């Protein structure tokens, strides 16, 4: 099963995971990493190196909160590993899709494509539905 790393600013990632687990149940092979003010990014890179090694057989998706932010910038450096994919712009529908469907995918990139589609479609302006 493809492993998932949620890498965000502050405690956002942990809260995403807690909320997702509240909806779809406890998850295995999920790691949460966060970036706080003042921490060195090299410590984080060391932890990511270990995770890439740990999950090199299953593949790994790194979910980050914002394209262009430092969590995303760090994650993108791991794209040199063929079995790692990065998806940015984390949302609850995206994370739930990845966690639910990762058993049925072998390729992290295919999983991310499906999750991106779900995440984009989950953005609804409620007034449009009401036909206001």
């Amino acid at each position: 099963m493809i492993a998932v790393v949620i890498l965000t600013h502050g405690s956002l990632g942990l809260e995403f995971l807690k909320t997702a687990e509240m909806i779809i149940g406890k998850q295995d092979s999920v790691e949460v990493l966060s970036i706080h003010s003042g921490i060195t990014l090299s410590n984080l890179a060391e932890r990511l190196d270990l995770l890439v090694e740990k999950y090199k057989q299953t593949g790994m998706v790194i979910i980050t909160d914002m394209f262009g932010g430092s969590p995303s910038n760090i994650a993108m450096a791991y794209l040199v590993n063929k079995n790692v994919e990065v998806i940015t712009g984390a949302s609850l529908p995206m994370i739930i899709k990845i966690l639910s469907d990762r058993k049925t995918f072998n390729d992290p990139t295919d999983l991310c494509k499906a999750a991106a589609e779900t995440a984009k479609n989950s953005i609804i302006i409620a007034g449009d539905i009401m036909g206001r």
Partner: protein
Amino acid sequence: MGKNRIFRIDDRLIHGQVIEGWIKYYKIGTVFIANDRVASDPIQNMIYKSIIPKGVDLYIYNLSEFSKSFSKRKWPEFLVLFESVADLISVSDSIDYDIDLNVGCVANRPHKYQISDTVFLDLSEIQSLCKLREKYAITVKKLPWETSIEIMNFNKLLNGDI
């Protein structure tokens, strides 16, 4: 004067604060990364070029290339990003009175003092900045609309002179 001619120390180089803060606030059209590591790493090059906002030019130089090319051209407005105090000091010949110096993010490491929520400096870095501060304005803040921390007397404070 100044304000949109900025040299910034930020060990994350381009990230959310720079994109959403500095580039937008000062309508910066030209960004430089002056960094030996990034200049020599194709992946880091690709990452930063992919995240720079549309309509903003990004130039990535190593420090010696930066010193040479920067002084040759008169750029009307710019943001230059340095990873460390030492890197900024190494190009201090390029600094003039119209350039605002900003210390934005320097991560914590052993033997560092906390200057702000995002800036941690060791004694030699504080001394280098205080020396620059005698000639040029230096702000310590992560975002443009914040109030700067004044570092004028930090070196004296650390030496026990105050």
